[in-house]
């Protein structure tokens, strides 16, 4: 392994570990105020929304551009996942629709 690549992998390993570890290490030892807990309770919804919605409106280069394949596939998955809260079936359905759209259009 080249030294440069070694530094790269070790450096990336350290900087990805710290934000994952530090809150878990210290917040588990502290008493968390009730209001902060309320805020933490909304983090999953906030982060998941921030992951899902931009996928539909940005291209791979990060520029604003409606993604018709993603939008058309996402719509039925939203409805399906809302009714049937199954991860497996949602993933399979999403893949099938996306694949089908690619074959049709």
């Amino acid at each position, binding site marked *: *392994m080249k030294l*440069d*690549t070694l530094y*790269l*992998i070790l450096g*990336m*390993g350290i*900087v*990805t*570990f710290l*934000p*994952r*570890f*530090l*809150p*878990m*290490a*210290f*917040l*588990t030892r502290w008493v968390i*105020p*009730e*209001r902060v*807990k*309320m*805020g*933490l*309770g*909304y*983090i*999953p*919804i*906030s*982060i*998941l*929304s*921030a992951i*899902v*919605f*931009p996928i539909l*409106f*940005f291209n791979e280069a*990060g520029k*604003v551009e409606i993604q018709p394949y*993603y939008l058309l*596939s*996402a719509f039925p*998955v*939203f409805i399906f*996942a809302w009714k049937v*809260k199954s*991860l497996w079936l*949602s*993933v399979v*359905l*999403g893949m099938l629709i*996306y*694949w*089908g759209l*690619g074959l049709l259009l």
Partner: protein
Amino acid sequence: MDDHQFKEGAKAALPIALGYLPVGMAFGILARKAGLTTFEVGWMSLLVYAGASQFIAIEMISKGILWFPIVMATFFINLRHLLMSSTLSLYFKKNRFRTLSLLSAQLTDESFAVAISNTSKILNRPSYLFGLQMTSQLAWIAGSVGGALFGKLIDHKEYGIPFALPSLFICLLLIQIKKVRHLWVMVIAGISSILFKWAFPGNWYILLTGLLASGIGMAFEIKLIPSPSTASGSGEPLARRGEGEPARRTSSLERGGGGKNKG
């Protein structure tokens, strides 16, 4: 380590594995093209294990950028994990540093989202989260090493593969929506994430949206459930908060902790 919990967690990771294998393969292929060896690809997926950062690192390597700027970029991209790690910390009180460091080392957006979709499974059950995360990372490593070795066998843009992880995230998001105010926070977070992504470079939009929308969520809760004016923290205020959802969560956390002590 509890075998039953570990297996349960491993099973819960299967939808993630379905998404990670092809994306990992894509990473392996691109990393080889950028000049990394298969060995280096494997070590990176083992020690770094961060999809977006690994792809960006490859992009930067192929542009001839040296290690330090790539490490800095990685650092900023992964600050969003501060929020996820903080959230998970509520469920793993009283665990040793060694356990916590292993658990947190394998935290990803996907495993976090699956873990938090059923909090009763993770509350003081580190083995479950180990099973979930080990399986996910195994798929990531297998995918990336596989891609580096036999890159050209499967086209990772085929068979609906690009939509596997988005579908997973959509379902995980909807699992979180239990009340009307959750729906509002989703709408606010959705719109603000698009604006943030448009306005700021890189991955800042996830962290910014996380802070903004969870702050707004907290404001909703405080308005809806009148809480005592200052932090007195014991006895009567707890009883008053009894009707609210967060208070119930707290008491179940405490029950869970107590149960573990007995066991």
